[in-house]
């Protein structure tokens, strides 16, 4: 179903925007912007599949980005600076996991708290301005890596595909992955069955932070070539749109990693096409919102159909 939407959108823009849209260079551009976006959301996909939320991922990205830029300018090697950046991101993930598991906070509220704190820390490196690293960024390994491409596929997209396949395998073929789905359906039952759900929650939040941190690093080096203190609202909205659209693919109504990858491509395809048509920013924003609503609607209705009406009260 999601493939169908992708093809439909792609065909639409091919017809309307013409050859500049389906040139191989533009396709490379679309995939290039979809790659890091998808990587950022793989972890969130797992968290959402387990019935929780993680709204801290943009701030994890920006904290990683600022930490990397700060240490890189201070003279550490790029590998060490990336390590510091990723560790900073992981600490945020561990923090939200601590609040949720140990103190039993609501996942939404605790990630809001963590993301606010993380955003504040990210701005504190420079007092709110971006840290430019453009002059030296070309030396780093990740930058070189992202310049390669095979055919129309940029390397960063292939990395995203690789990660997606590994995570898909884990989610579908291992016990751990099945537990994620099970917790999403009924956490109480999983706990009663003797499974340490807190360990799974911990892994989910750490993986989520790791993915977001890595994507933040990629964004810093290749896209922005500067440390960005505020990644904020647009990543947040795009992120949830992508994750929930992803639930339309392959396993209907369940968030999964491959679906996230496909819907990331859809979204960047749409953004690219609308920009080429010279559409207003608001049109892009509106269509994203409508797409998300449509996605949620389809999921809700299929789920209700599969549950059936037996034992349901009228208001349900």
């Amino acid at each position, binding site marked *: 179903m999601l493939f169908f939407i992708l093809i439909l959108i792609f065909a639409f823009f091919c017809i309307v925007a013409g050859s500049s849209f389906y040139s191989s260079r533009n396709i490379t551009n679309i995939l290039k912007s979809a790659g890091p976006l998808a990587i950022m959301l793989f972890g969130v996909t797992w968290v959402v599949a387990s019935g929780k*939320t993680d*709204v801290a991922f943009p701030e994890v990205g920006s904290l990683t980005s600022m930490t990397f830029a700060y240490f890189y300018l201070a003279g550490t090697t790029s590998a060490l600076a990336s390590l510091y950046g990723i560790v900073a991101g992981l600490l945020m993930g561990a923090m939200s996991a601590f*609040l949720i*598991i140990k*103190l*039993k*906070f*609501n996942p*939404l*509220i*605790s990630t*809001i*708290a*963590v*993301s*606010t*704190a993380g*955003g*504040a*820390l990210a*701005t*504190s490196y420079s*007092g*709110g301005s971006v840290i430019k690293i453009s002059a030296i960024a070309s030396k780093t390994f990740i930058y070189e890596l992202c310049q390669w491409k095979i055919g129309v596929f940029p390397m960063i997209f292939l990395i995203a595909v690789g990660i997606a396949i590994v995570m898909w395998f884990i989610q579908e073929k291992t016990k751990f992955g099945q537990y994620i789905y099970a917790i999403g359906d009924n956490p109480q039952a999983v*706990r*009663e*069955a*003797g*499974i*340490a*759900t*807190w360990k799974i929650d911990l892994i989910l939040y750490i993986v989520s932070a790791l993915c977001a941190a890595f994507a933040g690093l990629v964004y810093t080096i290749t896209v922005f070539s500067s440390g960005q203190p505020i990644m*904020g*609202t647009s990543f*947040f*909205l795009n992120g*949830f*749109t992508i994750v*929930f659209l992803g639930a339309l693919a392959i396993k209907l109504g369940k968030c999964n990693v491959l679906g996230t990858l496909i819907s990331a491509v859809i979204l960047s395809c749409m953004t690219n096409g609308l920009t080429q048509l010279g559409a*207003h*920013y*608001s*049109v*892009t*924003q*509106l269509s*994203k*919102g*409508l797409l*998300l*609503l449509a996605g*949620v*609607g389809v999921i*809700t209705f299929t789920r*209700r159909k599969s549950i059936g009406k037996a034992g349901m*009260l*009228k*208001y*349900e």
Partner: protein
Amino acid sequence: MKETKNKAQTNWKDSLPIIVFILMFIVIIAVFRILQPGFLQMSSIYSILRKIASISLAATGLTFIIIIGKFDMSFHLVGCFTGVCFCFLMVKMGIPPFIAAILTVVFGSLWGAVTGLLVSKLKFPDIITSIAVGSIAYGAGYLFSNAAYIYLHEDFEKAIAYKNIFTVPLPIWIMIIILIICYWLMEKTEIGRKFYAVGANPKAAYLSGINVNRITLIAFMLGGALVAFTGMFMNAEQGFASVTTTQSILPQGFSAVFIGWAIFKKPCIHGTLFGAALSVVITLGMAQLNLPYFWGNLATACILVVALLISIIKYNDRSAMIPAKKQPKEVASL
């Protein structure tokens, strides 16, 4: 005899968090006062109250939604829309401020109605639906503003944010009136009881004859209408309308509601006002000490965590829930 003693003890225990929070509030104000003598002058007290008015109105809207057990992740984005819409109506269309304000509140509650209908009638998941609707509202805000600032004339600005009635600015009057109405609605009337009933157990509420869908719809509409005031005030205060003005109030709104929850053991109007006052005083106090603004954000996050901690500790007293960590061992021993 013993019983009365116990009762007295529980009462004392109940009011402890309120006393602690008031003491904390006084200590915080005193510290800022000592560090920065100009902190609570007559001129700056109004700027603080004005800020409290904007934050507490948005947070009160959120309180209704949290009372019925739902979440709204997009009230700040609806605020972005309403602020721009208000200034657009006044500056570009020439509608007088009073009518423009009424229209804006209606638009705000319409956004709430969309979310409310989807969540109540069609059973969409609340967090995602509100994010989607907020995203649409944000895009619509861009449609009005054309991604540029709309500058307000001075008389408009004076008419809304800086108009004084008995030397007190208009936003503060509006806040007081609305909060009193909301307090009365929640604490003294039947509909308030219904809100809390739906929040405690929607199924039981439905079975006892409450129209759960209608209550949900009303809560979301109230949320949208109240955040419209915040959008108007914040944009009118700064003298120009921008889509991004209210984008950063999300954590402040949530921390206000949860501080109130921690103090009064339930999400409530007076608690939210208290929480909003606390978070605004800390943020503005830090700004007046010439600390960079992100320390204020960090402080807001810390307050939120502390508030949650207090409310969670109280929950654990009452609920018989076995901690998730211990359960597997017990099952294994069985």
